[in-house]
């Protein structure tokens, strides 16, 4: 096998390993919230993992700074919420979780994910 082929195989394997590490092995930044939190919508959600207390009303304010149509809606399906997020505008959502557990929130097309952890 020629050198260039060995080189392409090596770089390819590193590329695959890097892709895996980059997307699947990231550590979620978690924010513990007591009454309200602002979530920036730009290439995903930050913070993407929010810990909130059970039985208390928490206000989550989304502000979208990303023009991608993918992010124009936010869906909290466990709380039956689907909201349109206009660009650069604050959209507040209030939830009062009755059960502890992990609940996902996603964009309208389910490409970007965030998590609400109820404790």
């Amino acid at each position, binding site marked *: 096998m020629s050198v260039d*082929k060995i080189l392409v195989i090596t770089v390819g394997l590193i590329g695959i390993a890097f892709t895996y590490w980059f997307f699947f092995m990231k550590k979620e930044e978690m924010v513990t919230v007591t009454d309200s939190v602002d979530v920036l919508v730009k*290439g*995903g959600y930050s913070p993407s993992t929010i810990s909130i207390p059970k039985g208390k009303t928490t206000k989550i304010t989304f502000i979208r700074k*990303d023009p991608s*149509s993918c992010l124009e809606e936010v869906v909290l399906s466990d709380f039956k919420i*689907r909201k349109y997020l206009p660009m650069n505008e604050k959209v507040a959502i209030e939830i009062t979780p009755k059960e502890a557990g992990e609940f996902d929130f996603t964009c309208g*097309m389910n*490409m970007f994910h965030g998590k609400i952890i109820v404790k």
Partner: protein
Amino acid sequence: MKKTFSIRGMHCASCVRVLERSLKKVDGVSEAVVNLATEKATVSFDPQKVSNQILQSAVANVGYKAIVKDENNHEDEEQKEKGKELKALKIKVIVALGLGALILWGSFPLIMETAPAILQNFFVQFLLAIPVQFWAGFAFYQATIPALRNRTANMDTLVALGTTVAFSYSAFVTLFPKVVEMAGIEPMPYFDVSTIIIGLILLGRYFEARAKMGTSQAIKKLIGLAAKTARIIRDNKEIDIAIDQVQIGDIIRVRPGEKIPVDGVIIEGESAIDESMITGESIPVDKKSGDSVIGATINKSGTFLYKAKKVGEETMLAQIIKLVQDAQGSKAPIQRLADVISSYFVPVVIMLAITTFVVWYVFGGDSAFLFALLNMIAVLIIACPCAMGLATPTAIMVGTGKGAESGILIKDAESLETAQKIGTVVFDKTGTLTKGKPEVTDVVSIQGSKLNTQSLLQIAASIEKGSEHSLAEAIVKKAEDEKITFEKTTGFRAIAGHGVEGKIGKNKVLFGNRKLMEREKITYKEYEDKIAVLEEEGKTVMLLAINKQLAGLIAVADTLKDSAKSGIKALRDMGIEAVMITGDNERTAKAIAHAVGIERIFAEVLPEQKEKIVKDLQVGKNKVAFVGDGINDAPALAASDVGIAMGTGTDVAIEAAGITLVNKNLASVAAAIKLSKQTMKTIRLNLFWAFGYNVILIPVAAGVLYPVFGLLLNPIFASFAMAMSSISVVLNSLLLRKIKLVI
């Protein structure tokens, strides 16, 4: 068009006249009403002739300030923003495809010979491709860069990667052809690939966005139903006020052809009211004093006055909108698999694209590099996670919206999904199959009893006065109709599932069914024949005993709903078993069941047993729906797989019910199941298409068919297929709007 806006600087009644005169003078204004109390003006005008500025200056001319805003409705804003985005997108599509076509003409084998020499020049192609890549395609980078910063990826990431690779390689070839040639590769740019891909994907996005606007049409229609103003009577004067100013207790006048502003009860006058927009029922309903009216319905014939009972978020329309919005935000269980897959999708596709490049480079033989490059781009471009993400929610949105238009309100996607599997529908008799307004049909005096029928009715009605049972109401009403005076009752007690007891004077009175008589050891057997005759006619017979002696019988019958028979037949035609549950005895129950065509019945059921029967019917995988009025049967509704509540009054958000039928039409039960079946069929087809598309075409793009069939997918075709896949999913969901839910 009518508009209400605030006016600043008013302080007396004369201001009102001055303002009204000034506004009415404006060409195109047909009516202007100014209200001092609310400091608001309501103006009817022709929007072609009159603008906000004209209204503002008409007010300013007489020394006041008007705050005219366009309806600050969220939906409107959303619509406007979407409209703007679409417009911008359209320009980008035209530019990208236009420039792309020129490049294609100058570079695609077979047709390039016909192109002017200038288009065949690589540098010219390079210049034409730059604006497409970095202006039209800017949105892909704009989405990709922040996403990568968050270590996530989406659709845009794939497009950005694919087109950047194509563009950069082509740019390199154009600028340094010698270097490429030295590597043994023919220096050939692929600007056509990068530009046409961007153009086609943007075009797909444009159509997809337009189609998606259709999926939320039902909600917009519902919001549009609300009246804008109400004509209320205050201080003996009729004034027009904005809908959000109406308060509970306001007296509102509605004239023929007008929209009823909020929910309430008629206090004067009568009319026929078209409620089709809320209930789906096409025939107008006659209403008179004492009847309730629903906001947003249309008054057809008469003028009437009514008292507002529910305003703002409490109105039936607002509740319906909330319910439909909730349902559209909920997730169907069928979506779970798609959720899991899409969360891994994009990174996996990137890994596959790298693999494609490596495999082609190593085993591709001559011009391996070009094969590797183009096939890698094809893999990146053809992968379409959007179709998977859109498959379920778009269908749920259209399905729940379609239901709402026909008076079928679905609480969440899960109920919609479960409803298709229903094998048995249990109907509560009273108020569901029947109108729930029983009437006294027979009063029988027992031989030996000294009481005539009048006295029997008097005693029964007196004792039932305190009861809330629907049968009690019938007896009290009958007594009132016959102008019988009531006697004072002491020691009243209701015995659930049996009847009532109490004392009138010194006499102990028992009134109820056989079970009550047996419990109190009162003999009634000699009248069993008489009771049987009444029961076979479908009547409910109650026995009256005074001081442990049977004194008389009172029979009550409830009329069947007009839609009962056809509603049950529609279910039977779908192969679904209908079951009736009732507190009546077997014989009465059978007579009624026979009349509507139900074969299986549960009679003499105590209210608390309904839940158990529902659970017993859920044997194996049999899914059971319970249809009730949502008031007395909440446990049974909750225990069933899908609780279906027949709407009563203006309350639609019945907690225990998964589906609420606001039209009280029994055919809607079958219609709801049909809607569920159709929606799920659409979802399955969407998912099958979305999954199948990726599973089949990604390997094809990678070139797996090449060794055997010599088949490769040009990245341009890959982008076309990818654009089509999202659009086809959304369009398929929109087809749901076409189904007929015959009611």
